[in-house]
């Protein structure tokens, strides 16, 4: 979509005005600074999703739109988790982070902050594996997506 102020609120406003559900939304400028790329995760029946696509396409700021779930695609989300890291938990968190291929990016005497990137389900699984650990804070980016293969969303 056009990298213009107000473009994001048009999308967000459309969803609230028509009662659609936003599960996650990420947006940032692309290599072309006049364009932003947004990945939005929503849910609904086939009819509702069709209507969402049509309504989004009507927004003047939306340049091009694709339903990534229509073909093979890659989804990635980043999560930062700040956890209690004292006693036995300190080693356990390190082990779990390694298993999930996360990185510990900040350390204090009592906490670790783990960075983990992957499909949303993997992030969910990591959080579940921390069930015996005290979690202080979780921040997730929301999913970003891109088509597999040579298919591109270009102008």
């Amino acid at each position, binding site marked *: 979509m056009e990298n213009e102020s107000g473009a994001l609120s048009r999308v967000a406003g459309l969803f609230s005005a028509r009662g659609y559900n936003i599960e996650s939304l990420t947006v940032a400028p692309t290599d072309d600074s006049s364009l932003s790329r947004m990945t939005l995760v929503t849910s609904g029946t086939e009819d509702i999703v069709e209507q969402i696509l*049509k309504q989004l396409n009507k927004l003047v700021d939306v340049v091009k739109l694709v339903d990534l779930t229509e073909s093979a695609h890659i989804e990635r989300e980043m999560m930062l988790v700040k956890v209690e890291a004292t006693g036995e938990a300190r080693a356990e968190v390190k082990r779990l982070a390694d298993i999930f291929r996360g990185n510990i990016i900040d350390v204090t005497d009592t906490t670790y902050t783990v960075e983990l990137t992957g499909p949303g389900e993997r992030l969910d699984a990591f959080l579940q594996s921390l069930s015996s650990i005290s979690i202080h804070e979780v921040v997730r980016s929301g999913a970003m997506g891109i088509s597999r293969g040579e298919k591109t969303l270009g102008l």
Partner: protein
Amino acid sequence: MELTGAEILVQCLKEEGVEYLFGYPGGAVLHIYDALYKQDDVKHILVRHEQAATHAADGYARSTGKPGAVLVTSGPGATNAVTGIATAYMDSVPMVVITGQVPTHLIGNDAFQECDSIGITRPIVKHNFLVKDIKDLAETMKKAFYVASSGRPGPVVVDVPKDVTGQSAKFSYPKEISMRSYNPVSKGHMGQIKKAVELILSAKQPMIYTGGGVILGEGCSQLVEFSQKLGYPVTNTLMGLGAYPATDKQFVGMLGMHGTYEANMGMHHCDVLIAIGARFDDRVTGNLEKFCPDAKIVHVDVDPASIAKTVKVDVPIVGEVVEVLDALNSQIDASESKIDNGALEKWWQQIDVWRAQDCLKFDTESDKIKPQAAIQKVYELTEGDAYVTSDVGQHQMWAAQYYKFDLPRRWINSGGLGTMGFGLPAAMGVQLAHQDKTVVCITGESSIQMCIQELATCMQYGLPIKILNLNNGFMGMVRQWQEFFYDKRYSQSVMNVMPDFVALAESYGHVGIRVEKPEDLDAALDDAFNKYKERLVFLDVITDPDENVYPMVPAGAGLNEMVLV
């Protein structure tokens, strides 16, 4: 040569051929008003409330097809315009609204007369722009008019901070504009058109159902050709009246909640439904589960989001109605399939049986004035050639039922948003656009009071509008629903404290006439339309307060479950 932002704005309006700018001054737009003062090409119409500016521009746009233009100040100027912008949005009316804004350095500071006009109008515009740099002003105006009037039309707001109108820059108006993110479809898909034609020609009980889109898209002559080539029955929505001549034998009347029996029964029993420029509104379909149970549906619309929004269709065609109807017409000629004339004849016989119910008959012997009779008389007196605006409620439905529109753009009403107060200011825009034509505002005593201050505007510009105030002392449609569904508990719908409308009209300098008996109606109408031809006449017609709008599809019912009387 350099121009100020204010001069650039006025220059852009000239370039777009704007004849009338409807507006009201204020602090944030003083530079623009000064620029307007120094020229004569764009005529400014000073309304008495900003809501009326948008409705007047709306009436101008609906009756001409050209975008309406509005100028209001920041804060309350913009918020007062909101109802009119939403009205235009719901009925897809092209309009450009310039709202003043506080200077850029004060935006977000809770400055005097500041409001987030872009945020407030976002859900009720086709698009809006905030112009922060004078260098973008001319191009933004070009985009605004282009977006407003192309594709599915709609209102566009351009918010202009005061400092931008005071700065100077070189002016050049772009001849053309292209926007990578906005490319409305024009031609329909040929494969779909061929499929549609085969389905249309295979019909045994067809129905053509058309909406406001045919009028907005200027496709009326193509619709007439299409319908008459096929000989199929045609029904119009409230917004679509006039797209097909109402006096033609193929026309079965309006459909929907207060549509005719023959139109609604025809819809319910049809086997092929051809929907053109219509959006299957809830007032049209009734209960969706019972809607057109046996029909295969072809749906033509310029807006893909209108297709399959509420009703699943078999052959969707996205494109401009003119393009698609032209393609359908030539494809019908080219097709080897033929209409099943035997089946069609039987279908017409069935429709004539429904027609014989005469669902719009009313008591003509009453000693009270029947609102239907008043409208019928206006129809006869104006020979069906008037521009008719209306407000919202019972009188609106009666006008739609009893004034037979043979031409498009003659029936001007707020169908989507249902805005009371629309009729009089809309009539001002219509009268300015068509100075030698008769313009009638059919209204009620409740609606008219919502924008009554515009009687002053009408006096200022000498607009000889005929106001037919069907005065039953109630918010009639509210009263009707309370009678049917709330056991006659007329909660707050009684309008028994009213001004003396005759004296009120006279106080503004107009002619006021009160009519209380059926036998006085002819003479009063004759005075209004002939004796006082050049004056605004306020006809306060005291009508039967118990009269209801029939027939009616009750909420939740199917179109075949109409209540006749």
